[in-house]
């Protein structure tokens, strides 16, 4: 029987992320710089990459983590209140998003999935624009060129090819910026992600593959996608990889900086596996109690990405009342702005449906628009014109 639990061969069917690595290349253990208890541990290779992070900057990273958790909580609340149609929570994945996004330059370009809303925040996307697509007011929330971040990709893995192509463009331009693409553990099974690695390796393009291994693809555990560690996939394409504690903002930053530097200087692609955990449901439409254990959740709660930075700040004596108040105020302000921006967002006009399909006039569509506007005009009250029950 070909169930995923009966692997009896040479390859042990380990638990998520815990299986032994058979093939070097990804480092034998997780890169970690801050323990769950909040202790700064030194790492021979990666300390250097974050030695410039000052206490003040550590404070800002902490603020970022708190703020994006707050954005996430507020958006979840907005969904529960019917203001958003859907929301994909990032709870638990804050460090992976902040640590990587805060390593980027403005002229780097991000191609992400739907879950990297904390990255969008770092890129400077307007708060209301982050939720616009989830409110159903647009297919995408922002102009990618204003923040150098493509709008969220829903087709699993498709964006990894876009990033690779963008990186090929960077090469052709002779620039030293980098494309970074975010995707999940589940995405690694899609052909597109593997083909992206083929192209990135062949052309030695400046692209960083950032895999947020949050252990689940909706209801499917990561071990269904791979019996071995996700980071080990990259070596088979000739791409170096790093496996990093995704709940450790400093470690993620160190790994991302290393990868970015390599890419900037002609060293080609790098694959980062950030080992983290999706603490919430897949989206607000999902019920994870149907498929996962409460114990697993508890284990991961103990590795919370915010708690450990808080612990570190405390050890360093930086967790002053004033500091905490500043962070709380910032989070409150962001949440208020998000909510206000969301609920006051203007609704689209009916004929917007025809806009931007093409960049120049199209005879088929123009005729349909003409006909539909006549149709709308044929009603006294255009609002009644499009209910399923009908107006007549």
């Amino acid at each position: 029987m070909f169930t995923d639990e009966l692997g009896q061969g040479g390859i042990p069917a380990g638990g998520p992320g815990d299986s032994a690595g058979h093939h070097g290349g990804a480092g034998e253990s997780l890169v970690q710089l801050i323990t769950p208890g909040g202790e700064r541990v030194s790492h021979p290779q990666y300390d250097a990459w974050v030695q410039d992070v000052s206490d003040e900057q550590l404070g800002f990273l902490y603020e970022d983590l708190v703020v994006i958790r707050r954005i996430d909580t507020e958006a979840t609340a907005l969904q529960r209140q019917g203001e958003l149609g859907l929301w994909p929570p990032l709870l638990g994945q804050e460090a992976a998003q902040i640590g990587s996004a805060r390593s980027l330059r403005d002229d780097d370009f991000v191609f992400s999935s739907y879950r990297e809303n904390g990255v969008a925040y770092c890129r400077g996307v307007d708060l209301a624009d982050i939720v616009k697509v989830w409110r159903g007011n647009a297919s995408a929330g922002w102009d990618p060129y204003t923040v150098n971040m493509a709008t969220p990709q829903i087709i699993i893995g498709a964006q990894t090819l876009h990033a690779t192509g963008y990186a090929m463009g960077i090469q052709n331009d002779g620039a030293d910026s980098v494309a970074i693409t975010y995707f999940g553990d589940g995405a690694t099974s899609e052909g597109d992600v593997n083909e992206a690695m083929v192209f990135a390796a062949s052309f030695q393009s400046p692209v960083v593959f950032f895999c947020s291994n949050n252990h689940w693809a909706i209801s499917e555990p990561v071990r269904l996608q791979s019996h071995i560690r996700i980071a080990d996939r990259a070596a088979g394409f000739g791409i170096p990889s790093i496996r990093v504690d995704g709940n450790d903002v400093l470690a993620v930053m160190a790994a991302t900086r290393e990868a970015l530097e390599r890419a900037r200087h002609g060293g080609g692609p790098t694959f980062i596996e950030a080992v983290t955990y999706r603490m919430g449901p897949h989206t607000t439409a999902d019920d994870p109690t149907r498929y996962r254990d409460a114990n697993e959740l508890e284990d991961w709660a103990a590795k919370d990405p915010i708690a450990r930075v808080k612990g570190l700040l405390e050890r360093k004596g930086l967790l002053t009342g004033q500091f905490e108040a500043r962070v709380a105020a910032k989070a409150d302000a962001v949440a208020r702005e998000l909510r206000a921006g969301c609920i006051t967002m203007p609704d689209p006009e009916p004929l917007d449906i025809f806009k931007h399909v093409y960049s120049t006039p199209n005879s088929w569509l123009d005729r349909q628009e003409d006909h539909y506007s006549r149709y709308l005009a044929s009603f006294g009250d255009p609002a009644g014109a499009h209910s399923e029950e009908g107006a007549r």
Partner: protein
Amino acid sequence: MTQMTFARAINSGLRKSLENDPKVILMGEDIGTLGGVFRVTDGLQKDFGKHRVVDTPLAESAIMGTAVGLAYRGYRPVVEIQFDGFVYPAFDQIVSQVAKIHYRTQGAVKMPITVRIPFGGGIGSPEHHSESPEAYFTHTSGLRVVSVSNPQDAHTMIQQAIASDDPVLFFEPKRRYHDKGEVDESIDPATALSMEKARVVAEGKDVTLVAYGPLVKTAKDAAVAAADEGVSVEVIDLRSLAPVDFATLEASVRKTGRLVITHEAGQSGGLGAEVATSITERCFYHLEAAPVRVTGFDVPYPYSKLESHHLPSLDRILDGVDRALGRPNSLSGLEG
């Protein structure tokens, strides 16, 4: 007779197929432990085991391609594509393999694969979750394509599809999953109306209104509303989209002389064009007016705040009926 939801009716049909034929095997993303994101496969893995109801890795081309291999081995795979918009990574395997292997091997290798696709809009979802890709498949020789509009058909036709030795694309109208209806689970799919036949779901004499999947309900509602205005609408549920049962349509149009066809998919190149053209070919001299299409627009499926404009509504269908009848309508005076 039991009252059950559309989703439950499919679930119960799948269960029967699993019970009746050990070669039936369900595959897809999240269909096992979770029972599918729409719970259509709820409980089936528990009852039939992980080797009959298989949670697969996240890769649609592989799901379809391994289904081909299983069919080679004598299995009857039933593949779930989680949402309409995620069928495209599997397109190559469907079009170049599933559809062609029986022809390629001169009948030696059968491909009794059923591909279940929850399709269509109206549920307020983001991009890629509301598409109507059926025309891509109705244009692909070697495939059969059906769509169901009510729980009883859903229950019966999923069993017929699985029993078919040809590949069947099975389109489920996801916005109707929670609708309830009477289902007689004792109906034998082998003797029930064949999935290849259309069904007249409301008799009428002035105009023939053709719909399938989610819009059959809307079409029936439109017929009721039209009756109030003294217009008698014959509603036909296509059920089979490839091949279309043109004999049934032709008989109706010979009677009414007028044809309206509605679907959510974009107009240009949609199934409505095939229906209109074939009916015009078959009964040109019986047609009193050009066939009328009431469809989605030629746009990517829009974001949810606009989807009610995209989807053919009762009123747009009635306006189309008026056009077919030459009654005053939104385009009156535009052309002849």
